[in-house]
């Protein structure tokens, strides 16, 4: 961790903060264009290509158009919360970037000031990112609740459950990184990856993180909160104009945030990738910013690729996947890493013993790979359960059935109206 953090002059901090904001907004505009172009290529289409070179200005034009649209607040909405929700969703998305390292220490052009390419660093930097991005969920839940619409409510409910579940798996993968890096500070983690990027020794954690990050950002195939086919727009169904634009912005910034975090934790942060790393100047000056953004873009491409290929998972399948598979796997992996680290430091093992340990690890991994089979067994069990459920409600002939449902309907409606009258 650089000594400069916390002692920099105020104007350096302001310049860096503004730059991060600008980079994020421009990157979002670029990503929207990038997504549309890449998906278009996957679908035998052209994509936006009219405004600006290669259509690059399309998202800017869309953004301006969106801002000029009428701002509608539904009558049924809770106005204060309704207005507040997009703001709550957007601000934390930007705040997370305070601790993301873009590069090493550099000299600011035209001055003698040396500063790290990172706004600030905390001893608990990664935990700070987790904490701040969690606040963004409030924005979505409140948006769903305050809209006064069924679709938005269901979308908000789904997203709260989804993001909280996947945050656990995500947080667990961080633990193994912390164990390897010996620090929770993002700058220190990047430093620790000088020899080897963490995705090699911590590959399972990397895979789990990548899955969890897609779930965390509500992107396909886990985009249940905004499942167009069933919930129209999910939590932002009722939103229009700039408020909608803020949600859109938050979603894309979050996408970049989790990608940047993945880069920082597993792909060596701003360090130059393999062939370029042989060039001595690769990790100095402003070049690392390019490597960093390049790696982030690779993750964005992965997001887009998934969206272009996969259908949406169903809510319960998705939850089952998260809780019954992803979290146990992440836990098991964390325990394994702990044991290996402990054994390594206590017994000062030689290479041969380590190899034996590695063999044991391989066996464990083999066992882990058997888990999908037990998942299949789960599915069968579920189907049986479903049949039993259907059997518990035998389907009577149509007229009889109709009356029975009608009757329950009526009693329920009466019950409701009585309750509301009492209120």
């Amino acid at each position, binding site marked *: 961790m650089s000594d400069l953090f916390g002692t920099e002059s105020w104007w350096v901090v302001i310049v860096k903060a503004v730059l991060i904001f600008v980079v994020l907004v421009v990157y979002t505009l670029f990503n929207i264009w990038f997504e549309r172009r890449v*998906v278009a290529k*996957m*679908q*035998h*289409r052209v994509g936006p290509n009219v405004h600006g070179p290669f259509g690059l200005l399309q998202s800017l034009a869309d953004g301006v158009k969106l801002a000029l649209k009428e701002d509608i607040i539904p009558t049924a909405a809770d106005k204060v919360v309704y207005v507040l929700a997009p703001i709550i969703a957007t601000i934390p998305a930007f705040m997370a970037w305070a601790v993301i390292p873009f590069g090493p220490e550099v000299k600011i052009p035209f001055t003698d000031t040396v500063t790290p390419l990172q706004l600030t660093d905390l001893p608990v930097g990664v935990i700070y990112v987790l904490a701040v991005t969690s606040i963004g969920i409030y924005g979505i839940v409140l948006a769903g609740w305050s809209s006064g619409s*069924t679709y938005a*409510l*269901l979308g908000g*409910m*789904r997203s709260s*459950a989804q993001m909280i579940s996947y945050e656990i798996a995500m947080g667990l993968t961080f633990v193994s990184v912390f164990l390897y890096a010996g620090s929770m500070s993002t700058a220190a983690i990047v430093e620790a990856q000088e020899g080897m990027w963490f995705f090699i020794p911590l590959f399972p954690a990397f895979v789990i993180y990548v899955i969890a990050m897609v779930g965390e950002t509500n992107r*396909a*195939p886990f*985009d*249940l909160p905004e*499942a*167009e*086919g*069933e*919930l*129209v727009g999910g939590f932002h169904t009722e939103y229009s104009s700039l408020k909608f634009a803020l949600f859109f912005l938050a979603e894309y910034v979050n996408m970049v945030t989790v990608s940047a975090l993945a880069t920082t934790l597993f792909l060596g942060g701003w360090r130059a990738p393999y062939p370029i790393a042989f060039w001595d100047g690769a990790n100095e000056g402003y070049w690392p910013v390019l490597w960093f953004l390049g790696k982030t873009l690779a993750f964005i491409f992965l997001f887009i690729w998934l*969206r*272009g*290929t*996969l*259908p*949406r*998972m*169903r*809510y*319960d*399948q998705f*939850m089952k996947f998260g809780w019954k598979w992803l979290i146990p796997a992440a836990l098991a992996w964390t325990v394994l890493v702990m044991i290996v680290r402990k054994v390594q430091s206590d017994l000062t093992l030689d290479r041969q013993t380590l190899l034996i340990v590695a063999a044991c690890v391989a066996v464990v991994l083999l066992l882990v790979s058997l888990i999908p089979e037990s998942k299949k067994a789960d*599915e069968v069990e579920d*189907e049986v*359960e*479903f049949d*039993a*459920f*259907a059997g*518990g*409600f035998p*389907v009577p002939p*149509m007229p009889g059935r109709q009356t029975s*449902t009608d009757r*329950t*309907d*009526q009693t*329920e*409606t009466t*019950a*409701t109206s009585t*309750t*509301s009258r009492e209120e």
Partner: protein
Amino acid sequence: MTDADVPGAREVVVGVGAGAAGFDHERGGGGPGSSIATTDMVLNVGPQHPATHGVLRLRLTLDGERVVACEPIVGYMHRGVEKLFEVRDYRQIIVLANRHDWLSAFSSELGVVMAVEHMLGMEVPERAVWLRTMLAELNRVLNHLMFLGSYPLEIGAITPMFYAFRERETIQEVMEEVSGGRMHYMFNRVGGLKEDVPAGWTGRVRAAVAAVRSRMPQIEDLVLGNEIFRARTRGIGYLSPELVHAYGVSGPIARASGVDLDLRRDEPYLAYGTLADEGVLEVVTRTEGDSYARYCCLVDQVRVSLALVDACLAHLEDLPPGPVGVRLPKIVKAPEGSTYVWTENPLGLNGYYLVSRGEKTPWRLKLRSASFNNVAVLPHVLTGCVVADMVAVLGSMFFVVGDIDK
């Protein structure tokens, strides 16, 4: 009397049921939460909702995310077409007929002209019969491709739509070349077809069919092999053969439930008899009766239809040149009486009950359209699903709203 019956009343959306995850009490359990009194939520899906492609409205009663009751409300697209049939002459009603199911326009035209020809006792030239068979099959492919693309789209895969539309475009080009229409072909006439096909057209059809056939595996690989797609559709929306019989469900949906009925084979019209004898016409059936089976049925039906088109092309080449229509008098009048003609439309059985009093317009032309019956069975299929399954089931019932409301 429910809230929906009061004009202007808000469909009361009260509390959210037992929660999205716990259906404990429904299964008769006594776990935590099962004793808490909950109210059901009424969710109106449609009439304007992306999953209903059109203006079908479903009134769902939800307990959490589980559907406990479903009521399809139809009629938002009622155009009074049966009444209009009674004030249009026999040439004009074709244009109405091809609009009630806009994805199978050619097949719908066919039913009407066949009914009129049947009344008149008219013999259609052989060349026209083969051309009609071929065009009907091309129309079937177009229809199925639409659903092969839109169904994955509904459950979240955006790419298959464009793959399907590329194939549709290929076939639509030849359809457009022959008829001038891309959707409403208006190529049938009482007694045959509007005109003969352009020179060299059959070659282009052959090329288009070959191209589509070669690219169909791409759609199949993208969709059918997908783990998520299988998890979303297998065992979902089970439709039993008994329900198929009770509700008169027909077409690929019925065949996916193991009801082996296909008028092309069982009561051959046009040239299907010959094609069935030759063994080209296979009736695709599945026994699972779930959404996945319905989708598979469509995929296989496309393959069969493409083979049928090729067979028709081969027959057409052997035929001597000749007329493709019958010269009609200025005013076509069907003799007094009634007839019932039914055809195997892409979406199921379409029936046409034509009653004539010897005038130049039908006295009554009753339509039996496939989608109406296929949608009527929805309450049984949907009850017990979760909301996300609702889309997976609804999309796999393959309906066209215009065909429901007529």
